[in-house]
């Protein structure tokens, strides 16, 4: 049994919870987010040689980055950064969060998800910018919680990254 603690970070209402709801095993209700500020879910990912249980800490997305509890990230081996593709500000938020986490606990593997890819007409993130991020070596995925597009790919990628 191999398990890894993964934190899901992202601004308010970027769709973290929706991603989790459809593709992971969850036993706790979403009210945990508002009460405890965190909700734990599990995503089992089968790698060619083994199975990894990703223990996903869905941290409450907040507009106010200042109130984000860094302490929840302690012991995490990877991050899932979630951005709402229809709101440019959420990219900044996700990157700021990552910076704060790295400053506290050092660099760790992450995947960057541009969510709500199904809302093409309201998409605001230019492809150029995404390419630029990819050129940095970042794992970037355009996902849709609605269609499930690329979600599993992203988790698979992250699982392989954290078990290297």
């Amino acid at each position: 049994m191999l398990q890894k603690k993964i934190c899901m970070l992202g601004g308010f209402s970027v769709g973290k919870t929706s991603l989790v709801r459809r593709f992971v095993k969850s036993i706790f209700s979403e009210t945990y987010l508002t009460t405890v500020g965190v909700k734990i879910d599990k995503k089992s990912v089968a790698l060619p040689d083994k199975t990894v249980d990703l223990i996903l800490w869905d941290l409450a997305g907040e507009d106010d980055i200042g109130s984000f509890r860094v302490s929840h990230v302690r012991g995490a081996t990877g991050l899932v950064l979630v951005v709402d593709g229809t709101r440019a500000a959420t990219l900044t938020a996700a990157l700021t969060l990552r910076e704060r986490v790295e400053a506290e606990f050092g660099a760790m593997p992450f995947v960057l998800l541009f969510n709500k890819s199904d809302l093409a007409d309201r998409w605001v993130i230019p492809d150029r910018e995404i390419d630029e991020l990819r050129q940095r070596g970042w794992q970037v995925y355009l996902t849709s919680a609605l269609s499930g597009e690329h979600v599993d790919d992203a988790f698979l990628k992250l699982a392989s990254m954290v078990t290297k």
Partner: protein
Amino acid sequence: METLRQLLVSREISELSRVTHLLDEPEQLAAAVGDILPSAAARAPHAQLGEALAPAVERAVQRSIQKSPRTLTDILYPVFLPAIRKSIGEKIDQTFQSLNETLRHIFTWHGLKWRFESWRTGASFSEVVLKHSLVYRIEHAFLIHRNSGLLIAHVTADNATSEDPQLISSMLSAIQDFVKDSFNEKEQSGLDTIRFGDLRLWSEVGPFATLVSVIRGNPPEGLHEIVRDVLLRIHEESSQALEQFDGDGSQLASVEAQLQTCVELKQEESNEGFPWLVAVVALLLLSLAGGWYFLSWQSAQRWQAYVSRWQAYVSRLEAQPGIIVAEQQARDGQFYIAGLRDPLAADPQSLLSGTEVDPAQVHSQWQFYQSLEPEFVLKRLKASLAPPDSVRLSIDNERIVAEGEAPDTWIDRARAAARQLSAGGPEFDISKVRDVSPEVLEAKRWQAYVSRLEAQPGIIVAQQKIRDGQFYIAGLRDPLADDPQSLLSGTQVDPARVHSQWQFYQSLEPEFVLKRLTASLYPPDTVRLSIVNDRIIAEGEAPDTWIDRARAAARQLSAGGPEFDISKVRDVSPEARAAEHWQYYVSRLEAQPGIVVAQQSARGGHFYISGLRDPLAADPQALLSGTEVDPARVHSQWQFYQSLDPKFVVKRLTASLTPPKSVRLSIIQGRIVVVGEAPAAWINRAQAAAEQLSADGVVLDVSQLRELDLAELNHLREAIQTTDIFFSSGKVVPGPEQTPVLDRLADQIKEFAQSARKSGVTARFMLTGHSDTTGRETANASISAARAETVRALLKKRGVAPELLLVRGAGTFEPAVPENSQAGSSTNRRVSVTVNLD
């Protein structure tokens, strides 16, 4: 050689000497070693260095503590405090838990059982209680990586279920973080206990891993110790693996075995199976015994009730007069009683009714006897003596007393009975029974009649006797005294058997004399005759003729009779009475202030009077009424004069000066004093009057008069007096432009009048109408008067009291400006106002 040596090794030599010097000088050596000591210590093998230093460090610490314990305490404080606190907390919890359990079970069936067990095993009672009451089971044990919250190992007890342990362990550490963050708790220890109903989560925090045990039931505090031991062992065994845990649990498989020991911990309720058969048998026996006991108890209760009723009956009998209870007992449900009873006493059998004692169960044996108790003796006497209705028998202090009247025959029988009773019985007293044989009765009545006669005034009994049933009496009687025959009525003496012989005589007793005088003198209604100290006194008024007759009667009486005093009867012949009335009238006049009687006389039935009278004094004629003097016979001659009596002076002054309300005139010790406030004019008049009066010797003191302060009013007066109402040529009604002037004038006049009234003076306003010189004089005069009238009406309409407004027309005679221009004539067409105070 030396040179050669110098050449070859001089450098070494100097170096050597430097080193030797270094080694010889302790200070320099210390400085040199000090430089390298830290790195030397770091490179030394740890074990050896530790061993080498241990004794020195121990001694140093020892020394430090001896020197100043404070320093070390301060250093260790942060380490000790949490440990001590935690330890004490647990101990207290343990104590409380033990106390709670002990209290809860102290009076229960378990309690008794456990007390027995405590006695048997020698353990303390609270220990036994704790042992039995703490039923618990550890259902899960989670070993959680402290840093990441990842699950290291999880063990479940049989039949226990839970959700995904991986998620639970992460959530638990998230909650730990949450609590720590929320309440800003800095301590290293985590969340100790979470309790949810029957379920408790205990977490023990180790350096790398947290052991969370999920316990159902009521665990003893001591369990903490055990769980902590398990955690400690896990850390000891796999410290390295725990520290390096990265989510791969394969390295830590051995941990599960340790956790298993944890999960096996439990204290289950002893379930030995209830001994049903024994219980049923015991219950049966108990109910049988209980039934028997209940029945016997019930019958005993009932018998007890019977006996107490019986006792009540016996004591009732004992309280009965004429019944003596000799013995009584209650035996085998039957009652026995024996004793004496008077035949006149209450029937014991009938007394049973109402006692709820069954008569069939009562066995009585009564001997009759004669009770000597007074009431029984009384009963027997009543039965044997048959006393007449006029005799009453009663018991007084154990004695039987007969009272009343009885014929002598009955008295004899009673006396005999009394003699018989004397031995042992109560005394029978018949001394209060009067003998009422008929002769005795009649004699008594006669004596009563005689003494009644003797008490009568005007009757003197000379002789009386009874002979052969006949009564004889002789004596004197005044004709005015009561009739002896009529006095017989009500005495029950038979008049037919009374033989009287009365001689008439004149009694000299005052009351008879009075009666005779009244009959002979016929005194008028105004005279009253009465007896005072055996003297007859006449009082009142009578004509001289009657007085003469009375005087003659008094003379006749003088010998032996009572005195007749007529000195208090006044002679009231009509002339004397008229003179008296006249004198009364005159004295009344003389007492009148303002009337001086100079002369008066009564002559030939007529009255003459002359004198002085003030016109303000009472009318002498009017004073006649009620004096019974005939006005037709009074001839008066009065000269008017001014009385200098201060009262009259004040009256005259009030009438002549008409002082304002704010002034008060009063008479103080014969002087007339004027006090208050008045306008200056009035004060002047008062002063003049005072001067006049002083000539007549009357003092009028005006020094206390103050001039009315009209300063405020003067301003208003000025304003009113400078106001003019203007008119167009030939008009008697002012134009509309004058309306505000009129309004203001009305207000001012009202205010002035009110203020003046307050000060006690009346203000009057003279409205004078004027005209210009255009036209005829007569027309102008009437126009001016009409203008004044109009203004008066307009002011009245504005609420000014009309009686304060005087009106006059001045025509052209009082022009405001000389009449030589158009402007002049329009100025003269006006109504002016002047204010007068009085």
